[in-house]
């Protein structure tokens, strides 16, 4: 994929683009976008993939005034305009799913089909119990066990990374905290707006996901007018990373003309 920087909505936005076909906006999780992940090649083989790094992630700038997910949703509506697209398909992972859901409530007519992968963004349970475990209050090892079906495979090894890569990883985490700290991992209003997202939607969950539970995903799906649930085995919170083939199958079978 090609990376470029687009000045848009006050942000210097890093955007990866590649592939041809039906336009597909890919919105990454809190871990950021890595074009080297195997699932990406699978996507660009069938779609024109546009994958921005959210403000504060990757090499995208973070203006002072941006501090929530909604800000980013507006930005990506600008991006769709700038790309000259009437409608796009959207895939959003985790917090990227939350961003996608916000976009879908603002201009549902701009999204043809929507995939949310282990999405956060709504609060569906009781006040005295978190819907999403507090990843900022747990040791890294425990968080990894929630994130991955096979955490041993995905443990970060700083010695294998450049300073730049490490800096990006650290900054991604900081930006994730900025956006999701309070209310934690959700916008209290979103559940009252999801009825507007009338496009066909699928919610994908890795079967071992410790962050987004099956019950949470079902309640999320029930808020959407036209949503189905797809479960990917042997995967955690990032099925696109742990099971790229199964993930891409799910995408290809849903994001069709």
């Amino acid at each position, binding site marked *: 994929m090609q990376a470029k920087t687009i000045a848009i909505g006050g942000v210097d936005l890093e955007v990866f683009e590649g592939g041809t076909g039906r336009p597909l906006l890919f919105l990454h999780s809190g871990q950021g976008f890595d074009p080297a992940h195997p699932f990406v090649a699978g996507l660009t083989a069938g779609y024109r993939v546009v994958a921005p790094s959210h403000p504060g992630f990757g090499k995208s700038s973070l203006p002072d005034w941006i501090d929530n997910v909604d800000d980013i949703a507006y930005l990506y509506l600008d991006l769709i305009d700038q790309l000259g697209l009437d409608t796009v398909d959207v895939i959003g992972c985790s917090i990227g799913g939350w961003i996608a859901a916000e976009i879908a409530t603002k201009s549902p007519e701009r999204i043809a089909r929507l995939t949310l992968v282990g999405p956060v963004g709504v609060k569906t349970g009781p006040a005295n119990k978190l819907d999403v475990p507090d990843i*900022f*209050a*747990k040791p890294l090892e425990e968080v990894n066990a929630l994130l991955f079906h096979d955490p041993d495979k995905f443990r970060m090894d*700083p010695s294998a990374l450049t300073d730049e890569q*490490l800096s990006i990883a*650290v900054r991604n985490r*900081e930006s994730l905290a900025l956006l999701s*700290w309070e209310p934690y991992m959700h916008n209290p209003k979103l559940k009252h707006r999801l009825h507007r997202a009338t496009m066909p939607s699928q919610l994908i969950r890795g079967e071992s996901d410790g962050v987004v539970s099956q019950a949470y995903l079902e309640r999320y799906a029930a808020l959407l007018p036209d949503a189905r649930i797809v479960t990917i085995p042997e995967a955690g919170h990032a099925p696109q990373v742990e099971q790229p083939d199964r993930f891409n199958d799910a995408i290809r079978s849903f994001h069709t003309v």
Partner: protein
Amino acid sequence: MRAWHFTETAYPYLPPEDEYPSIRVTLPNKHYDPVKGAALYDRYIDEWLIAEDEGLEIMLNEHHQTATCVDPAGPLMLAAMARQSTKARLLILGNPLANRRQPVRVAEEMAMIDVLSKGRLEAGMVRGVPYELSPANSNPVRMNERFWEAMDMIVTAWTSHDGPVSHEGRFFHHRNINIWPRCYQDPHPPIWVSTTSTGGAKQVGGRGYTQATFLTGFKETRRIYESYRQGWREAGLGNDVPIDRLAYAAIVYVGDTEAEAYAGAEKLLWYVTANKVAPQFVNPPGYVPVPANVQILRGAEHPLSQFARGASVEAAIEAGFMMAGTPDQVYEQFKRHYDYVGGYGHLLIMGQAGFLEHDETVRGIRNFAREVYPRLQEEFPDTTVSGNFGDVPPEPPRDFIPAPGEDHVAQEAGDAANMTPLGAARGA
């Protein structure tokens, strides 16, 4: 030279350290016995009052969800001390502004204490240590920005006397600010800020507030003070920086003999060693800047954490964050530090911690107050100008705190992680 007695009002009666992952944030409060806790409050308050009797000033602070400092509302303890004490200055260092959501309430609280104490308040403001983010549910990102906006609102609230004023800012909104009571001191109590970074110190200097640093040893303290003085001068506040604008917090214990002093000092090391904190609370995302976090991922460790593992009184003295010994020895240790960093007007004495018992604490206070303090007051007068390095020791002393200026990345890190009080130094 003014000396301040400081205790964190800790609750030391805990299970063995290997039975809990963190002394802060998550340690269940079932481990706190309120009857024992009440007795500790009695005792710590007595010790402040004894310090006052001995001519020292009083300093306290605020932390949350921790056994190391059972004072989750510093202004309350300050209010109690405002009435129980009669002459000491009362320093809170400090109000964790980035974690308090109503800056005008902080202004009201401080004004009320200023009146309750008839103008004895010294109002310290801090960003808040990393472990306080979860207890306050405060976003760890952009704390500095929140801190300074809150500070400006507080000063505005203190200095507006002609009816309501408004603030529509980035983090705070408040129409119709018109606090009752107004402050006793005019225009307002002295403002203190604690900082561990040069960037922060420069900003504090530019405003003329009093700058405190905690356990920062030799080189780092000097570097912070230099930045303060630079900020002061660049802001046009004049060439001479008054010595009373700088403060240093050290662990201090004075004994009749070196052995007695070292025994007390040993117990005071609890300040540094009893701080087992789960890593996710030590370093929440956004608290320190990206380059510092990269260093941490590469295995860097805070020098105080290194130190804590093999803590000894000798090493702490050598590193400049402890002064312990006979009166003569403490005097020499103080003078050496004072001269090296360019001088300061306030010695914040961490004089009680952990299992240092009441009689030991009182002995330390009295020995300092009677045998050391008079010499310091005489030989380091408040009329001194800070930063005259006529007699810098030729060889820089050993220092556990590296001078970040020697390393660009570390410097950036230190600069942005400013206004970190004791906690960060102890745990980061």
